[in-house]
């Protein structure tokens, strides 16, 4: 193995270790920094975050890293963190203490929306008039 490849492998391990200390928003901006889901049979602790096709997912519970427990096969074991690419994911129910401000963007499913009002606590599904489609 060449020195460059070997160094890249060493640095990648450090990158993944360091990524554990990032907050969710920052981690979602640099999702490539997070480890990918492995299927090597190792134990994934609860709260462990992974890069799943550009989304940052967190293990809801401790689980084994195998094919049966991937987010695709067992979505109930994973939850998306509150951000995607540094932008908030709009929850099914927006808490009153954490509303969306006018002009603030949010992910609703795979689409990006922008709130048209301040203190917006309604989702694009519940109140389409309160949002418009946006670009990342």
């Amino acid at each position, binding site marked *: 193995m*060449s020195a*460059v*490849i070997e*160094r*890249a*492998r060493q*640095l*990648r*391990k450090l*990158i*993944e270790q360091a990524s554990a200390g990032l907050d969710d928003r920052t981690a979602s901006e640099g999702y*490539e*920094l*997070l*480890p*990918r889901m492995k299927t090597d049979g190792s134990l994934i602790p609860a709260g462990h975050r992974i*890069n799943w096709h550009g989304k940052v997912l967190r293990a809801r519970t401790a689980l084994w890293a195998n094919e049966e427990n991937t987010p695709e096969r067992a979505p109930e074991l994973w939850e998306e963190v509150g951000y995607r690419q540094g932008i908030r994911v709009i929850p099914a129910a927006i808490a009153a203490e954490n509303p969306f401000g006018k002009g603030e963007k949010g992910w609703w499913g795979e689409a990006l929306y922008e709130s048209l009002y301040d203190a917006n606590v309604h989702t694009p599904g519940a109140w389409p008039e309160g949002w418009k489609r946006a670009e990342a």
Partner: protein
Amino acid sequence: MIGAIVKNDIVTGLLVINEEQIEEMQTALECEIVDAKPYGLIEGDLRTARGWTRNVGGEQVVLELQNGEEPDSYELAMERALAAEEQAAALKEYEEAAKILLGEEEA
């Protein structure tokens, strides 16, 4: 070296080749491979009883042995080709390293 692929006394192409590979390549391509450098052979040159010749304006001109190293000589061309190969290999290595750093390949 730069080898000239010769079939029926006509140069049909050029290739970069190590001397130890010549025999194997001759068998594989069913041709003769000669050093292109001394006469600066190119595709279409013809070997005759008078020596290597080239069609220039419809006339077969006998090629002279080349002396010295011209800026566009085969020696330099070979060096450039080998350097390009090394650069391509290094680039591939850096591409792989980038994939590892981005987590696209198992570290």
